C-alpha cells in the first residue's frame, strides 16, 4: 500500500512537468498577450514591461525560469494583469473561498444524491422513484447559470432573505446560494449513477441469497448492497470533488464570491500567463491527489481490488 502511494506520487512529478510544458506551448500559441490592449503601447513602454516580466526572453528560458522559481522558492510570480497581486496572493485569497463553498456543495450533493438514488432504486417504479428520478432530471437540465440568477431574484429581490452576492469572509448567509447553485447538477448526476448501480446490485445473486435467508431489507441495503453500489459513484466523485473545490466560473461570476473559479476563464481571456499557469498547476496537482485518494478508497471498499 505504502509503496503504491509512493510510486503514484513519484509519477506525479513528471506528469505535472508535462502539464506545465503543454500549458506553456498552448499559452504562447494563442495570439495576443497580457499587455495587448485596444490602444497599442508605444514600443519603449512595451519593451520596459516585457523586460520587467521576463517576456523578452526566449520561451524555453521563460519556462525554465518559471519551473526553477517554483521548485526553489515556491514562487509563482506576479499576476500580469492584476498588478497589485502575485499569483500566490490571488490563490491564497481565492482558494479558501472555493474550498468552502465547494466542500459544502460536495457534502450536499453526495448526501442528497446518494439518498435520492437509493430511495429510487429500492422503491423501483413506484411514485417515489418517479419523483426522485424526475427531480434529478429536472436538476440536471437546469444549468447553474440559469439557476443562479433565479435564486438571487427569489431569495434576494423577492424574499430578501439572503444577500445576492459577495463573500464577507465566508459568513453563512453568503455561502448558502453558491452551495445550492453549485451542488444541484452534481446531486442529480450522483442520484442517477447511484440509482442504476443500486438496481444492478439489488438484482445480483448475493442479494437474492440474503433475501432468501430472510434478512430484513434495511439490513440488506445498508450492510450488503450500499458498499458495492457506491463504487461507480466513487469514481465519479474523485474528479467531481476537485472540480467543486476549485470552484466554478459561473458561481464566481454570478455571486461575486472572489473564488478562483473565475480565473480559469478570465486569465485565459486576458492572457494573464502566470495566473493561467498557477491555477492549472493547482488543479493538476489536486486531480492527481484525489485520483489517488479514490484508488485507496476503492481498495478499502472492495477487498477484491489489490493495490
Amino acid at each position, binding site marked *: 500500500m505504502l509503496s503504491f502511494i509512493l510510486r503514484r506520487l513519484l509519477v506525479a512529478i513528471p506528469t505535472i512537468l508535462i502539464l506545465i510544458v503543454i500549458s506553456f506551448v498552448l499559452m504562447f500559441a494563442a495570439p495576443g498577450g497580457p499587455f495587448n490592449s485596444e490602444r497599442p503601447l*508605444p514600443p519603449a513602454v512595451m519593451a520596459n514591461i516585457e523586460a520587467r516580466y521576463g517576456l523578452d526572453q526566449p520561451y524555453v528560458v521563460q519556462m525554465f525560469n518559471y519551473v526553477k522559481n517554483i521548485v526553489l522558492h515556491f514562487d509563482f510570480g506576479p499576476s500580469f494583469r*492584476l498588478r497589485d497581486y502575485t499569483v500566490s496572493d*490571488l490563490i491564497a485569497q481565492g482558494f479558501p473561498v472555493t474550498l468552502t463553498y465547494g466542500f459544502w456543495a460536495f457534502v450536499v450533493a453526495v448526501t442528497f444524491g446518494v439518498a435520492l438514488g437509493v430511495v429510487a432504486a429500492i422503491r423501483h417504479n413506484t411514485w417515489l422513484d418517479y419523483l426522485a428520478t424526475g427531480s434529478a432530471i429536472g436538476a440536471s437540465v437546469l444549468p447553474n447559470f440559469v439557476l443562479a*440568477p433565479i435564486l*438571487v431574484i427569489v431569495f434576494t*429581490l423577492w424574499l430578501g432573505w439572503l444577500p445576492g452576492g459577495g463573500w464577507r469572509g465566508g459568513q453563512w448567509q453568503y455561502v448558502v446560494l453558491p452551495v445550492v447553485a453549485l451542488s444541484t447538477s452534481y446531486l442529480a448526476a450522483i442520484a442517477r449513477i447511484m440509482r442504476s448501480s443500486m438496481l444492478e446490485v439489488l438484482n445480483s445473486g448475493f442479494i437474492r441469497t440474503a433475501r432468501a435467508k430472510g434478512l430484513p431489507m434495511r439490513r440488506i441495503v445498508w450492510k450488503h448492497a450500499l458498499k458495492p453500489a457506491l463504487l461507480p459513484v466513487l469514481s465519479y466523485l474523485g474528479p467531481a470533488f476537485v472540480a467543486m473545490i476549485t470552484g466554478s466560473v459561473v458561481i*464566481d*461570476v454570478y455571486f461575486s*464570491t472572489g473564488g478562483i473559479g473565475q480565473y480559469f476563464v478570465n486569465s485565459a481571456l486576458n*492572457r494573464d500567463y502566470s495566473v493561467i499557469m498557477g491555477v492549472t498547476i493547482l488543479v493538476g496537482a489536486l486531480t492527481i491527489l484525489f485520483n489517488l485518494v479514490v484508488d485507496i478508497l476503492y481498495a478499502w471498499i472492495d477487498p477484491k481490488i489489490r493495490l
Partner: protein
Amino acid sequence: MTTRFTLAASLAALVATGALAQGAMPAEGETLSDNQTFTYRVLDEFPSIDPGMVEDVEGSHVARQLFEGLLNQDAEGNVIPGVATEWEVSEDGLTYTFHLRPEARWSNGEPVTAHDFVYAWQRAASPELASPYSWYLELMQIENVSEVIAGERPVEDLGVRAIDDRTLEVRITTPLPYFLQMLTHTTTFPVPRAVVEEHGAAWTQPGNMVGNGAYVLSERVPQERLVMTKNPEYWDAENVILEEITALIINDENQALTRYLAGELDQTDIPIGQYPRLLAERPDEAHALPNLCVYYYNLNLSESGPEALKDQRVRQALSLAIDRDLLVENVLAGGQVPAYGLGHWAVAGYEVPDDLFGMTMTQEERNAEAQRLMQEAGYGTGGEPLTLEILYNTSDAHQQLAVAIGQMWKQTLGVDTTLANMEWQTFLDARGSQQYEVARAGWCADYNEASSFLDIVTTSSGYNDSAFSNPELDALMLEARTAEDTLPLYQQVDRIIAEQVPVIPIYFYSSNILMDPSIRGYPFENAQENWYGRTMYRVAEQ
C-alpha cells in the same frame, strides 16, 4: 435614535472654513441621512490602484478618492485647485510653476511636498516600474520623458523639480492648451516615497497604503470588494460628509441590476436595451450621461483589404446606407447620439460642424445617394457582387449591431455581409495586423479634448487600424498642436474623415446608470464622470 442634523448648521460650518467650492455642499432644506455610505458596482477587479500604474477608468476612480493631484475637476469637469492652490505659466507656455497647499497631509500625518510629486512622476516614467501608463507623461510632453522611458537618461533628467517643499516646477517641450486639464489624471498624483520603498509592490494593500486623498483604503478582497473610509488627515476633512465608499465587483450586469433593485447597491450600470423600461419605471434613478467614446467600423484600406473598399465612393455608400437614427433609437435605446464624424459632440471646446458629409440629409436622401455612388463604382445591385465580412469581438451587443447594419447594406445597396467574431485578444491581433475587411472599433478619450478622437486616423497613430493615410489631415493635426484657435482645424479634420470614410463613425456612447435618488453630489454634468466622494452625500429618505 437618529441624530439628524439640519443643513443650516453644516452650511454655516462650510462658510466659516471658506471651502464652499471644494467639499460636499448639500442644498438648503436637505436633511442628511445617518447612513453616509455609497456602494457602487464595478465590472471587474482593478488592474491596479497604484496611481503610477492605474490604466483603467475604474482604477482611476478609486485612486482619485485615495490620492489628490495638483488639480481637481469640479462637477462640470472644469479645473479647480487640488494640492496646488496657485500656478503660473511662463510666456512661452513651456514652464509651469505650482504653489502647493501648506496644510496638505498624507494619511500618516506627514506633509505633502513638491518632492512627493517629483518622486511620483519620476517613478511613473521609470523603466523599473514599467508602468503601462508611462506614455501618458509623454502625452504631457514633459521634458526628456521619452528618453527616460527608453532608459537613455536617468529619471532625474525628467522635466519636473521641487524648487522648495511648496513649489513645483514642470517643463514641457510643446505648449499644450489642455495641459492643466491633464493634471487631473491619476498618473500625475503624488505617492509617498518612504511607504513605497518600505513595502515594494505590496504598498497598495490595506494597512500599508498611505494616501493624501479624502479617503483611505480600509479593505480589499480581489474580485470581491474594495472599501474606502474617510481620511481624518485630509486637509478638508471637515467638509467631507460621505463616511464610507464601497466598490463591489460584480461581473454580470444583470446580476448587478437585481442587487441594485434589492437595495444592495447605490449605483450600477444599466444593461443594454433596458434603459427605456427602467426610465419609465424609475424616472428619478435612471440616467443617460454623455460618455466620451465613439463606436465605429474600421475599413481595411491596406494591401490585404478588399479592392472595393479602396474606392472612396464605395466607402461613402456604405456609410450613408447605415440608418444611425434607427440604430440609436431602436437597437441601443440609451441616449446615444448618431456619429457622422469622429469629433465627439460633448468634448470640451468642440462643436461638430453642421456640414459633415451625410449629416444633414434625411435617411431617404442618404439611401438614394448611397445607391447612386455604389452604382457609379460598379458594385452591388446591378454591378459586381460584393460580399464583406464584419469582424467584431464576441459580444451580443456588437452582434446585434452588425446584423442590423448588414441588413441595411443588403436592402439599400445589395451588398452581402458575413459575420465573424473572435475573443478579445485574437480580435485585437487580427484587426491590428489588417487581417479583416470591416471591423468593429471603439475609442474613448484620454483627455477631454477633440484631438484625443481625431488623432486616431493620423498616419502614425498606433490605433489607425484602417491603415489610412492623408497628408492634409496629418498636417492639420500637427498644426493644431500649437495653434491659438484649434476649432477650425479640428472641424476640417472631421470633415475629411466624414467625406473620405477611413472609418465609418456610427454613434457616440452614452453611459446608462441607475443611481439611488438619496445620493447627491454626483457629477452628472462631467462628461468624463470623474467623481469625487468628498463632494457626495446621502440625504435622508423623505
